């Protein structure tokens, strides 16, 4: 079966794939490209586990069609670290134990990265509102908020 030919950029690399018209970007990333960092929690845009950045906008990849990525720039969790060097948010999530089962973590990291890029000095309230589209059933959120606050400090100093 043929599909729609899509040329896009993922984490800075040119990527081409064929996908079906009703196939989500999340399914393309996971099932066709092997980028399994983005997770499917709900599949309806409620949980944020599939968060990616498309052309500078934080989105749920489960609510984007694979075909829509044509000509866009997609950033996923796989592009967050530089080689072996973790992004400050990743480092602080580890230090603050801001994860338990880890399913929500890639989405939180991408959403937090987007938040800090747009607002480098968020208040606690702004962090909580900014991450309201990401659900975590383990941590109770507090450690995640502390990790983002700490990462913001580090990133400002960098």
């Amino acid at each position, binding site marked *: 079966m043929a599909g729609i030919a899509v040329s896009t950029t993922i984490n800075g*690399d040119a*990527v081409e794939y064929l996908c079906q018209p009703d196939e989500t970007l999340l399914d393309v990333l996971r099932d066709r490209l092997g980028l399994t960092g983005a997770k499917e929690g709900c599949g309806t845009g409620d949980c944020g586990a599939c968060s990616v950045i498309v052309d500078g906008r934080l989105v749920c990849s489960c609510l984007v069609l694979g075909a829509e990525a044509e000509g866009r720039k997609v950033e996923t969790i796989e592009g967050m670290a530089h080689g072996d060097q973790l992004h400050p948010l990743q480092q602080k999530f580890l230090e603050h134990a801001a994860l338990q089962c880890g399913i929500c973590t890639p989405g939180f990291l991408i959403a937090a990265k987007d938040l800090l890029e747009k607002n480098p000095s968020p208040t606690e309230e702004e962090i909580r509102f900014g991450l309201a589209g990401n659900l975590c059933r383990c941590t109770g959120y507090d450690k995640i908020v502390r990790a983002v606050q700490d990462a913001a400090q580090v990133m400002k100093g960098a």
Partner: protein
Amino acid sequence: MHERDGHYNQTLYNGRSDYDHQGETMRYIRPLSIEDAVGELAKAVGPAAILAGGSDLLVRMKGGFIEPELIVDIKAIGGLADIAETADGFRIGAAVPCAVLGENKALKQAWPGVVEAANLIGSKQVQGRCTITGNLCNASPAADSVPALVAAAAQAVVAGPSGKRTIAVETVPTGPGRTSLAKGEMIEAILLDKRPEHAGDAYLRFIPRTEMDIAVVSAGVNLTLDEKGAIKTARVALGAAAPTVLLVEEAGQVLIGSKLDEETLERLAKICSGACRPIDDKRGTIEFRRKVAGVLAQRAATTAYKRAGGK
């Protein structure tokens, strides 16, 4: 390029015969002109869906509520992804995400109520995709941006096989999930008037938590004042209070000439409560929705009045 990226960089996927695909005949197109989009919509044999942000469409597809034969992605159509300031006011393209409304300083200053309503829809992730045109055409009685748009007397530019027409936004939804748009028609933009001096609008909703929820009941109010601070024109709209968003003309009229004194606010609440035809469900009882509709109308009117420069 990092080594770990190598495996997908060369991937040109040639399809998989075992791919479990439900919509065998589904087509996805991305037309470059309104004429092409309308032409395709008009000649579609099966169900056709317009895709802008997809935050309703993809959920409905996933749930099996709609299986479109044709998906028309309108984001590549020139002008549809832009907010234009015109001599008459603002023209908000049908594909402009709500987040972009919040980032537009001129729009936010002119129509803070419309923008705050649009920015209440969903999370950051949803804001990056969802549109006010989609919110209008999804035709939910609880749509957040619609009462604010109705109060603002916003208009919708409808393109169709026989040309274009401009209609009041309140004439678009006809019931839950239903619109007055004919086959082949689509909304290409929402128009908001230029603001005179001493004008303000506001939108409030009740939800049982602080965000990420659907309005139990909501109110949008739009006012203009004369030089002395008396209300010159007023429009009041209620959400989640009837099968469609309600324009409560009587509520607007009761405000005219007043400076929003206590007695006027009481009458406003009473009229709004009386105009409700709400449902009784787990989110709120009829009695609760009636009461809160009045309270929200009062509070939204008070905020709109302050924004218009009244005291």
